């Protein structure tokens, strides 16, 4: 299979185009790998739409029927529901931390138990997020414990 790369100007959208005789397993594998390696989400901040890499997301949180993405120091709204994001992020390093949050494992600095019987995750940016006791096994599973 020949591989061609064309550099384009910034005012055009980046695109990966696969030209093939048929969509076989090899092509499907390439497509899946591309989707996994460069997953992005559309986040809304006011009137602007931002493309956010999944790897930059600290956690998702559902508040008052809306779902928000929390990055290092910015917050965006997303159109998906939390259960849809859970399905999407299960393929990545995310796990359900409570009824209303999905956390990125790669952004957790450490966890510690709280006096109320729950766990608290301290993230790389200093934020603290609660992990409900019933969801701790999810984290342990993801870490192979």
């Amino acid at each position, binding site marked *: 299979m020949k591989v061609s790369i064309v550099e384009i100007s910034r005012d055009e959208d980046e695109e990966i185009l696969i030209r093939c005789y048929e969509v076989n397993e090899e092509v499907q594998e390439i497509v899946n790998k591309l989707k996994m390696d460069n997953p992005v989400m559309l986040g809304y901040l006011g009137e602007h739409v931002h493309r956010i890499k999944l790897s930059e997301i600290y956690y998702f949180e559902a508040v008052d029927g809306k779902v928000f993405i929390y990055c290092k120091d910015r917050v965006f709204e997303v159109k998906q529901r939390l259960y849809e994001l859970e399905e999407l992020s299960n393929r990545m*390093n995310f796990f359900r931390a*409570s*009824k*209303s*949050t999905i956390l990125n*494992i*790669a952004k*957790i600095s*450490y*966890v*510690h*138990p*709280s*006096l*109320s*019987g*729950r*766990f608290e995750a301290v993230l790389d940016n200093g934020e603290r997020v*609660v992990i*409900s006791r*019933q969801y*701790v096994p999810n*984290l*342990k599973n993801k*870490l*192979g*414990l």
Partner: protein
Amino acid sequence: MALSNFIKKLVRDFLVIFGAIIITITVLRQMYAPGIGFDLKSIYIIMAFALAGALIGLIMYTPQGISERSMRIRIAVHFCALETILITLASIMGIVDSLQSLVILALEIAFIYVVVHILSWENDKQTAKSINEKLESFKKNLSE
């Protein structure tokens, strides 16, 4: 926790509490008052209090997430409710019959409650430690 799972937990708690009370009273009576039997009224009283004891678990049921402060308040309320139910049961069963014995029982319940929480917290610390160790190697693998 989903409501159906919570109800299952409630039923399980009720059966455990009921069984524990019956076994404890049976053993104590065998040791100190073997002549006293269990009448139907006593069984119903124990069932009622076992149900009450299981129901106070509703205090800790939070279908929506709550803050740390709210959770601690609920724990305090749960403890007070538990003390009230146990002391009331003990009074009805004749285990406490004076202010002194009531205070001693209250202190014993408080001691056991605190010990259970401390043991649970120690267990959680071990869990957190193993998670943090795995997190470290996980992040190291990611950066490689």
